[in-house]
């Protein structure tokens, strides 16, 4: 077990920057999810950590050892990382036990000891007695668990998982999610878990690293990510956040502020070091919005879409102002609101979040 430190790592494929100055660190025993849309560079990052590819600049350390830097590169074989591949990568010509025991065989562990540890690892993933089977005769979930046992048996310093649930059906996913959480609790391993599924990342990780276009956007706990996104991209990516323009932001101390949204005053949350700013961005989600009565204080909107979501309706409404954005909010059943209606929408007091825009922290 060891901590992982990634410092300003860059990776190019020809002229394409797959990773751009990514920094990330995982404490010993921490479960980090790397979250981002497909093609954002997650697998590339994982392959750099594993040592399959070399960095263009920056350093990667496992424990105290520099394993990747432009000056040198420790071969994968010597890194003592465990990987669970997206398609499991079980060797079809070996039995389950041979698959699991491979790294022990490489290390020259005596047969008796090897068998004992293989069986132990298989018990840990609930596959005791499956050692003689071939991977081809296992179900998807069982293969996944063999892959887990295989990476666990070598007592790796670091476990890397590349979208391990992407190939499983929905039911199995939920079960395997629990499995991963239990696996992490039992082994206390440092884990880097790659996924494009927010719910998965939120459910499993201590902290989530959000990536886009080869950059790290934010590294934070799930609730921080949801409640206090660091920038507009994270705000809109996580939980379908709406990003709206704010003016006249006035912090009131203690992480609270007042500001104006399309001229209407509202109270909201902000960073503790938020300074007064003339302009900024607001992040709200459907649950932060509510329909105000006809005379209530709020934004005049026109309903463009009503979708039944079982017990409630998701409304989409355009703000009736210059270039007005589309808002969405949920109203409980029954409701008389229909497409074309004029409604007033208010942000619940203290629910919005002032996104700390670059430079926005300094009053200007």
């Amino acid at each position, binding site marked *: 077990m060891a901590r992982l430190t990634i410092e300003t790592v860059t990776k190019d494929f020809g002229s394409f920057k797959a990773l751009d100055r990514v920094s990330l660190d995982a404490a010993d025993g921490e479960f980090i999810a790397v979250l981002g849309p497909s093609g954002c560079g997650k697998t590339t990052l994982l392959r750099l950590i*594993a040592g*399959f590819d070399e960095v263009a600049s920056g350093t990667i*350390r496992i424990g*105290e*050892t*520099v*394993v990747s*830097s432009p*000056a*040198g*590169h*420790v*071969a*994968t*074989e*010597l*890194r*003592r*990382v*465990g*990987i669970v*591949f*997206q*398609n499991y*990568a*079980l*060797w*079809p*010509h070996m039995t389950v036990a041979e698959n699991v025991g*491979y*790294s022990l*065989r*490489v*290390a020259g562990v005596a047969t008796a000891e090897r068998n004992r540890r293989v069986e132990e690892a298989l018990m840990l993933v609930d596959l005791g007695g499956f050692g003689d089977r071939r991977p081809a005769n296992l179900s998807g979930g069982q293969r996944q668990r063999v892959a887990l046992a*295989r*990476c666990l048996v*070598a007592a790796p310093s670091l476990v890397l998982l590349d979208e391990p649930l992407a190939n499983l059906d929905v039911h199995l996913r939920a079960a395997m999610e629990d499995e991963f959480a239990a696996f992490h609790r039992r082994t206390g391993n440092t884990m880097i878990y790659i996924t494009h599924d927010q719910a998965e990342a939120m459910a499993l990780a201590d902290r989530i690293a959000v990536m886009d276009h080869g950059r790290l956007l934010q590294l934070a706990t799930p609730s921080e990510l949801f409640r206090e996104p660091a920038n507009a991209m994270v705000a809109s990516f996580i939980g379908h956040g709406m990003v709206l323009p704010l003016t006249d932001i006035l912090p009131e101390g203690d992480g609270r502020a007042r500001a104006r949204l399309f001229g209407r005053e509202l109270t909201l949350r902000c960073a503790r070091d938020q300074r007064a700013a003339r302009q900024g961005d607001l992040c709200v989600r459907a649950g932060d919005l509510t329909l105000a009565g006809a005379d209530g204080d709020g934004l005049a909107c026109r309903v463009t879409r009503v979708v039944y979501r079982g017990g409630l309706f998701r409304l989409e409404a355009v703000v009736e102002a210059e270039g007005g954005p589309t808002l969405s909010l949920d109203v409980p059943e029954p409701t008389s609101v229909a497409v074309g209606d004029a409604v007033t929408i208010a942000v619940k007091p203290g629910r919005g979040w002032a996104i700390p825009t670059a430079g926005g922290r300094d009053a200007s």
Partner: protein
Amino acid sequence: MNLVANTSGRRQDRALFAALCVVVALLSLMPLARLLLEAFAPGGVPSLKAFFATLGSANTWTATRNSLETAIGGTAIAVILGSVVALVVALTDMRGRNAFVLCFVLPLMIAPQVTALAWLQVVGPASPLLKLLGLAPPIGTRNPLYSREGIILLLGIQYAPLVFLTLRAGLRSLPRELIEAARAAGASRAFILRTVILPLMTPGLVAGTALAFVSSIGNFGIPAFLGIPGRYVVLPTLIYQRLSGLGPSVLSEVAVLSMLIGVIAMAGIILQDVMVRRRDFRITTTSIAARPFTLGRWRLPVEAGLWAVALIVLVLPMAGLFLTSLVPAYGVPLNATTATLNNYTFVLLEHAAAKRAFANSFSLSASAAVVIMLVSVPLGYFLVWRRSPLLRALNVLVELPYALPGVVLAIAAILIFLKPLPILGVSLYGTVWIILFAYLARFLVLGLRPAISGYHQVDRALEEAAQVAGAGLVYRLRTVIFPLVAPAATAGALLVFLTAFNELTVSALLWSSGSETLGVIVFSFEQGGDSNYAAAVAVLTVLVTLALMLTTLALSKRIPPGVLPWRD
């Protein structure tokens, strides 16, 4: 901050990589370089005398003209026969496809000299088949195959399967929507064939044509059996005659001659490239292969026609060969009382050189197959998974010794090994080792191609998982990579074995007493007038070939599609 740990894994990588580069350079680059050197600097002294003397000789040009005539004629027959059969097999609902493909492709796996011998036995005055039918011409009549037309006919039959195979590969990837769209537009079958199928098949057809041409121009077995008695000399037989008549003193001359063959062969390959490149033939969609044409009431006649072809190209010559191997002596009519297995016991048990030839051919082919498999697996690894640019360049070189006619490589091998090896001081010339070297160089690509397609089928994550487990490159190769590509690599090794086992072109120039191969033995029996012994040896080689091919069919589920030519 600790220092970056040292990387023993990479040293292993580099050592293996360097070793592979050396092997490829020795097998591919060195022979061609040595040949060029000899042509322009005989004995190491730059001189164009041999070059101009050879090119100025009338013999050279007669042989060149003959080579071109037979190669072009043979290619024409191969293209017509091969493409008609390919179209019928791939596009119609004929029955018994697998069995037919096996029969039609089999002549490709039978050595050319055996094909030649078999046909000579079928139509000659001593033909047991014609005698059985009472149709044999009187003894002493000249065999009609001892002629230019005979050579052309047999070259055509020998290489029709090549055209068939390349064309069928293309027909298989033809998306059926393209044909269905034409049908929806109301086109008749003939119209679709002309306007859609054949234009899209052009690359396959051109490639098959080039392949048949290059193989015909380099063929030695057929013109050796049919041309030498008929005094019809082509370039490979001219080289053979010069070398066996005058020995190594004519090396510069034959080096120039073999380069001439090489140039003609390359011209064929380049022409193909130019023709295909002029237009864009890429097919963008992939879907289920097309098989829309029902033959209806023509089905039976078409099937009968195809099986008649199989009868003529396979059954007839093989029957002739087999009957000849049972005849006690030249010209004796064959019947139940005269038929004998004495020819077999003679070549297997009594004739010393023939017995040696069986041992030599088996061990040479098996060694070549094993060595090539051991080289191909790591070589394929660096080519496909590591994409090493240096090796990719060398990969083109690996193709050359096989693309060029066999005599070219044989002459190069003589040039390299005529003098004792530096440092060691031993000479390989006149031993089996020179033949082994030539086999390795010439057939490496036959083993490499299947290995490469094997790598394309295996997910690289399987190797990376082993890397994560701490296994070094050599260990990974042994425990993970090799088992995964083993089926493909084994198929490659089998192809190498079969090709080497049936080979004559290279060993005809490199053999000496003690290092005879089966091809050489068949050739010298036939030249000495002992057709019955030649036929017995030939039948045995065909049986071995057939047995191995059938074995692979049993294993074919684990071998990537397209690797074994005789599998539909």
